[in-house]
């Protein structure tokens, strides 16, 4: 963490400091303004929303937009979609975590042939986005009779283990070798080492992994779009995409649409604020506060 480089050295540095704080705040508000606009709009009436100049703070609050998003003629969010998003996120991230942390331990601390080959495969997969393998992935899932089922929604995403495995490999390989040797001398087998040593000690890495993966899964649009064409498995990003698509949004009032986006996004914003540090650690390795 950098200390202030101005300190209390004279009035001019103090003024520079104030100006800098002012600019930092303005820029922050500017960056967050689409979110603030969405939040404010979700509490306005439609006539308030179309007033020029635009209202920044709603002159009156319309909380009914939120209930309208869930029911009635303006309904955007099906409770089922909400449930599907939760099932998809928890299932994909939970399963992937088990796969990644065990795989990370194996690559970091165990000796076997083709270790480098496996590591290279994981690394290469990071640069091949799902969109480029979407059709064969769809065919594999289809041939396994899993299209329009929860396993078909979850398993292909849980199987994208490249990032997580390398993250845990990185973290676990920094743990002292003596620790693992000692456990083995005490007669622990690798399963015990995994459960009693690697998982508890890798908690910071797990937090970072969850922070990034939960966001990714909750926000994923592409795979659910093809794996769950049928209505009953739709997730929230698909719901939003429908109202976001030009021409179809006009049916639902803008304020209810904004309320729906807030409802879908708020859980992730809360998660993000709660795990911000872990998220940053996961991205940046270490060094940021």
């Amino acid at each position, binding site marked *: *963490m*950098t*200390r*202030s*480089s101005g300190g209390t050295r004279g009035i001019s540095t103090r003024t520079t400091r104030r100006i800098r704080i002012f600019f930092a*705040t303005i*820029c*922050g*508000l500017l*960056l*967050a303004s*689409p979110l603030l*606009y969405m939040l404010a*709009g979700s509490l306005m009436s439609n006539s308030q929303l179309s007033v020029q100049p635009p209202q920044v703070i709603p002159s009156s609050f319309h909380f009914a937009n939120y209930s309208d998003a869930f029911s009635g003629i303006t309904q955007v969010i099906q409770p089922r979609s909400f449930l599907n998003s939760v099932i998809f996120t928890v299932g994909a991230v939970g399963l992937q975590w*088990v796969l990644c942390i*065990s*795989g990370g*331990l*194996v690559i970091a601390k*165990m*000796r076997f042939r083709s270790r480098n080959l496996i590591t290279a495969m994981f690394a290469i*997969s*990071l*640069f*091949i*986005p799902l*969109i*480029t*393998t*979407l*059709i*064969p992935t*769809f*065919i*594999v899932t289809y041939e396994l009779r899993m299209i329009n089922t929860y396993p078909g929604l979850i*398993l292909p995403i849980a*199987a994208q*283990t490249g990032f997580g495995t390398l993250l845990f490999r990185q973290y676990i390989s920094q743990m002292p070798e003596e620790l693992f040797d000692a456990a083995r001398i005490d007669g622990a087998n*690798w399963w015990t080492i995994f459960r009693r040593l690697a998982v508890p000690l890798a908690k910071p890495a797990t937090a970072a992994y969850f922070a990034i993966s939960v*966001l990714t899964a909750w926000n*994923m*649009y*592409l795979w659910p*779009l093809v794996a769950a064409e049928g209505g009953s498995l739709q997730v929230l*990003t698909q719901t*939003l*995409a429908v109202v*976001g698509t030009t021409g179809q949004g006009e049916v639902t009032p803008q304020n209810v*649409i904004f309320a729906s*986006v807030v409802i*879908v*996004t708020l859980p*992730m*914003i809360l*998660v*993000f604020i709660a795990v911000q540090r872990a998220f*940053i650690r996961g*991205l940046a*390795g270490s060094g*940021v506060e």
Partner: protein
Amino acid sequence: MTQVTNPRPLNIRVPAAPLPSRTTRRDGRAAALLIGPNLLMFTVFVVVPIVGGLALSFTTWDITNGFPKWVGLANYHRMFADPLVWQAVETTLKFIVFGVVPTIAISLGLAMLINFKFRFVSVVRSLYLIPAAMSFAASAVVWRYIFLDGPGYGVLDYVISRFGITPPDWLASQSWALPALDIITVWLSLPTATILYLAALQRIPDSVIEAAQLDGAGPLRRARFIVWPGVRYMTVLVAIIALLSFTNGSFDLVNILTKGDPIYATQTLVYYIFVNGFSFGFFGYAAALSVLQIALVGGILIVLRLLSKLLNR
């Protein structure tokens, strides 16, 4: 290999000349069991699709004809003759270059701006980082209204016209639709990029900056001679992560907001892949286009690598 009395060939995999300072312990079986599920899933849903996609690109499979039919390079010939492909490649490259470069520049500026301590620093930083929690889908919805055209709508148009500038038609305009999608994706990419640069900045010791300040180096000189050398290495990572984010964004946003319109102005290669595969059912052709897309991303990564070598020389 002196263990001739051992009834079982235990040492069969030990190299004839053991490597110095390395035990010959092997955890093969335990390792296989522990990493097995991971590798099984990874193979079925990642490796097989990658290899299978390559194979698929040499076939036609239009769903209607039951089995994939081997056609050799026919899909690739068709690809080279298809003007929409090259337009899509151009659109994709424009989308990436005009998105990734501003992302790098702006995020570095923002990271420098917030790299100091003040009373509400964590609150202010949160403002910078919170967009990272948003999906492309959610952003698409909000930005669609920000970009909205017509009298009495569009917040952005209102702000712009206050400055006496006639706002463009954004998503409906042939020349502004792609920049509009770039603006959304830059906005979504900034938090991650800013975090990475902030991490690099915080590794520059305060003493170095303070010394430069005492020596009378202004902000620009400090940026040029202290900050940039300190964050150069991070720029490659920022660029790679932004590149992948723009690749994803070039599908999500296009599919939700423009469907490649107006007149193919926003038809990126990934969207063209999707349309061929899932709208037209040309699985083989879409697979060939996917190979092109992978080559495109690979090519950009090689360019980045060369650039980083130049930068870090």
